[in-house]
């Protein structure tokens, strides 16, 4: 006989508890990873823009635009950076990495702005663009566009890995809980079976009862107590009831 009713609520409770832990941990993880990685990517983009701006001064002053293009071509190979353009102090485009041409959204923007801007460029995707002034802006501005899709993908991957880990722990925890509950339920089931048999025929003892009666835990104590109680009350009758054996 299984002890379903007694442990049903326990299992449900464990499952609900683990679920709440997983849900809250995942939400916290998503928020933390998203916030920190977004901030880090933006910071990296800003650092790259600053690095290019710092190193562009001599090249710009020497009017060596081929070297300037070579410089930004190397940076645009860094994963996540989709475009770089450099404008002069008059807003003229001196070097860029756009193909087949400079998008209208870029042409129409303020070339001297260095504030982070989120852009949606048809055919290219969503970007966060960061600018950095060259020589305090008097020599121009460097603009670096980070692909938000790639950033989002990286963030999703990082979050996914953490959620998968937490989910695996949830499943393992629930399985372990069920196993542990079953471990406790099994001798109780045996005790119940024994109690039913003894009540039906106190004189009948089997080998399985020996195993139960020799246990040195609470189940063994209960079995021995039940046997003792049933042996002393075999002649007891409920008032008004017909003469029969307990229960």
């Amino acid at each position: 006989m299984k002890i379903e009713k007694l442990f049903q609520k326990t299992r449900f409770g464990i499952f609900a508890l683990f679920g709440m832990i997983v849900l809250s941990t995942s939400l916290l993880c998503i928020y933390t990873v998203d916030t920190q990685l977004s901030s880090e990517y933006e910071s990296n983009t800003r650092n790259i823009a600053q690095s290019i701006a710092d190193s562009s001064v001599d090249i710009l002053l020497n009017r060596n635009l081929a070297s300037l293009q070579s410089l930004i071509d190397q940076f645009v190979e860094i994963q996540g950076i989709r475009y770089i353009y450099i404008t002069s102090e008059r807003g003229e485009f001196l070097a860029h990495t756009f193909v087949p041409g400079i998008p209208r959204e870029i042409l129409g923007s303020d070339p001297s702005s260095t504030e982070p801007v989120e852009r949606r460029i048809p055919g290219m995707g969503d970007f966060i663009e960061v600018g950095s002034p060259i020589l305090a802006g008097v020599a121009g501005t460097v603009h670096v566009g980070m692909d938000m899709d790639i950033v989002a993908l990286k963030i999703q991957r990082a979050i996914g890995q953490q959620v998968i880990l937490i989910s695996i722990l949830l499943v393992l925890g629930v399985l372990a809980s069920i196993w542990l509950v079953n471990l406790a339920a099994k001798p109780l089931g045996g005790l119940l079976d024994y109690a039913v048999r003894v009540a039906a025929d106190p004189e009948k003892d089997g080998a399985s009862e020996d195993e139960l009666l020799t246990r040195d835990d609470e189940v063994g104590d209960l079995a021995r107590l039940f046997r003792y109680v049933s042996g002393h009350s075999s002649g007891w009758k409920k008032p008004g009831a017909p003469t029969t054996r307990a229960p």
Partner: protein
Amino acid sequence: MALTRRSLLRRGAAGLLAICCSNRSKARTGIGGVFDMVVAENPGSGTGKEIPSGDEITLGVSAAFSGPSRGLGRELYRGAKAYFDHVNENSLLGHRITLKLYDDGYQPDPCVRNTMKLMLEDRVFLLFGYVGTPTVTRVLPLLKKFQNERVYLFFPFTGAQPQREPPYGEFAFNLRASYRQETSGLVENFVRVGRKRIAVFYQADAYGRSGWAGVRAALGEHGGQFVGEATYRRGQRFTSSMRAQVEILKATSPDAVICIGSYAACAAFARDAVDLDLRVPIANLSFVGSENLLQLLTQDREDPDSYTRLLVNSQVVPSYEDLSIPAVREYRQLMARYDPQVPADLAQEPYQPFPQSFVSLEGFLNAKLMTEILRRLGEDRGRAKLEEAVFSVQDFDLGIGEMVSFGPNRRQGLQTVYYTIVRDGRFVTLDDWESWLG
């Protein structure tokens, strides 16, 4: 020090910048540190007195022998090899000249790796006949990094400014005219015949930007600016569509388009321009490889002139059809005699060489001047005397009617730009722009 993504990114960025700007202190903490390590593993380096072993002088070449621009590397090699074969066969120098070849496919990173190998493992005497601006501009910082080695780059097949100006100009010697001169000449002629609305189609890299800057500067001298620009990524094939670029430029109603690209992409652009009814003169620079361009635009065409009627190409060597030029006669004779072929291991991709071409003529002239410089170097063939030998070249007659001179402030031998158009399936010299566009 904790190794975070940010610190890694910063170190990488610092290294990249250091290579570009030769900021050596930064380079040691970034990518430049790799180069330091390689030098340490080659203790023989740094003397600046490397002497070619035995009777051979080995010149190191990294060029495009594969990929969409393979025609350039192969033709340049063939022209140079024809002359070097002539020198070796007739013992004109007293020493054999050999070429150590590597293929970079016209890509910067392989070119940098090849150059490291040539300098540090093969220990070639000098670098010769490189192809392309994006490749050469990435190699120049290496030459500066190893400046104690005094490894010079001779006669690269590019007209860009970085190897003609500080801070890298002192490590290279150029024979051909610059892109600035080519674009200036094209703009000058277009403006003179009333075609002032000029648009630019260019490769999105250092080569394209170099030509773009030349057009911009030339138009600036006439008080104008280009009316439109469109770009393409390096490595495009003739089968690529350039319709988007044509549409962008067509919307600006140009009178002429100047292309700064490789032959496959420029041919694709010329084809799509005609197909989309953008019927204006389309100019290409010498780097385009005129014969390769022409072949793509005319092969399998019912009307072979349909795509080439309005083509004009600038050249930095005279026409190989002009037999009145002594060097052209010599070139044709030696090309026919030796018919040099690219080594089989570099010729995996199919390619049908041209009996003559502007590119191979340039390679031929490069080799001829290189031989003269090595002759002037004499028996003391240390690299330290190489620059002196180059500067001793004054009013030297290469046989094309223009004297060649070098000096500390003159690191480019030739200055003349020629213009050619297509007539009867071949490029001929254009002398009269008014009549052509009249």
